[in-house]
């Protein structure tokens, strides 16, 4: 039986793998997509304590190499279910390929980009609509684009794009931003950035390619069309933990209910990172959860 199965190879999962390995236990991490999780899309991380500046890709790769170098195993399989063993001594984890047994499980499933959920969004993804400014920004050199969102990702994306694009509209449904002041202030100073506040995108325009958006002012109800070639959606994330509903409690937003000790309602099942209920979703809190969950799981196994 494996000591600890970790679901998700993002920063929380890989940090948990590192701590598990260093505690002398066997960690098996399952990842359905790519290691690193959301952070891979970030061009520059400047707020991780101890690291002045690093790209998301380099950070994710470093984490992956550290974990696997220590003996943790990462398998690219999607976890479909986690169940208690009949004898109550451990869990059965089923993936799309196989079935595995573990003494403890850490759910570190993170979250995915939230979509606007409006007409033409799917159809025009890849044809002007993007969720990754760093992947696609350069193609909009000299063009007009918009970023929708009010958190760090949106502001960082807008900053990144302002270096390539002729104009960047920042569309946000409120007056104030959740984003860090540092970057927001730098953005406000850029001449080619225009803020469209208290507004939301109500329509996507264009046939084969995006040609513009319609935004609606939430106070006046006034609608206005903005011609753009690119729309970068950065309106937050959504977790996906429905497969684990039997063993853990989920809040209204779908996040796994757990406190700072990373314990769920089921003994032997822990949760770490963006997928759990918490106020601050950052790399550093994901990493810290990984350590806490791993050490709690190790104590549980040793008890």
């Amino acid at each position, binding site marked *: 039986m494996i000591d600890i199965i970790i679901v998700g190879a993002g920063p929380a999962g890989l940090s948990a793998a590192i701590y598990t390995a260093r505690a002398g236990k066997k960690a098996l991490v399952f990842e*359905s997509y*790519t290691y*690193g999780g959301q952070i891979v*899309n970030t061009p520059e991380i400047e707020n991780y304590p101890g690291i002045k500046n690093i*790209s998301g*890709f380099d950070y994710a790769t470093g984490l992956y190499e550290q974990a696997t170098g220590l003996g943790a195993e990462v398998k*690219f399989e999607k976890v479909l279910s986690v169940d208690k063993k009949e004898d109550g001594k451990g869990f059965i984890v089923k993936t799309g390929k196989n079935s595995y047994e573990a003494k403890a499980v850490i759910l570190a499933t993170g979250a995915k980009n939230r979509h606007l959920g409006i007409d033409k969004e799917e159809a025009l993804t890849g044809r002007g609509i993007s969720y990754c400014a760093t*992947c*696609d920004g*350069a193609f909009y050199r000299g063009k007009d684009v918009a970023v929708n969102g009010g958190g760090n990702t949106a502001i960082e994306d807008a900053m990144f794009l302002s270096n390539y694009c002729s104009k960047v509209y920042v569309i946000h449904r409120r007056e104030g931003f959740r984003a860090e002041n540092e970057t927001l202030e730098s953005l406000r100073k850029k001449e080619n950035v225009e803020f469209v506040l208290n507004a939301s995108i109500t329509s996507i325009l264009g046939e084969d390619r995006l040609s513009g958006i319609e935004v609606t002012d939430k106070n006046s109800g006034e609608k206005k069309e903005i011609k753009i070639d690119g729309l970068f959606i950065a309106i937050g994330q959504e977790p996906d933990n429905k497969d684990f509903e039997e063993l853990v409690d989920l809040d209204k937003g779908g996040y796994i209910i757990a406190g700072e000790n990373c314990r769920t309602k089921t003994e032997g099942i822990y949760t770490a990172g963006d997928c759990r209920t918490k106020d601050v979703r950052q790399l550093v809190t994901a990493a810290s959860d990984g350590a806490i969950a791993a050490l709690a799981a190790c104590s549980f196994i040793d008890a």
Partner: protein
Amino acid sequence: MAALQITEEQFEAEVLKSDKPVLVDFWAIWCGPCKMLSPIVDQIADEVPEIKVVGINVDEAMTLATEQAITNIPCLILYENGKEVRRSVGFQPKDTLKEWIKG
């Protein structure tokens, strides 16, 4: 064996005039998900001998990228007999990619 990296000048000969279907990986250095996908594309080059696999750095092939209407990367395009059969934007895990190639 890995994906063959080509320039836009080589595109016609290596892709459009290829007698085998060709999977082209359009990538760039500053694109994180591209860097995640490229090693998987290299593995596909080894594991799917029925197709030819090439990679193009779009920064050095902007004219081609515009011609091929590429504005989002990573972008994988499957060509057969000189024509685009289908394309996919964004990262894909290996198994899903193999299925996508089969069509």
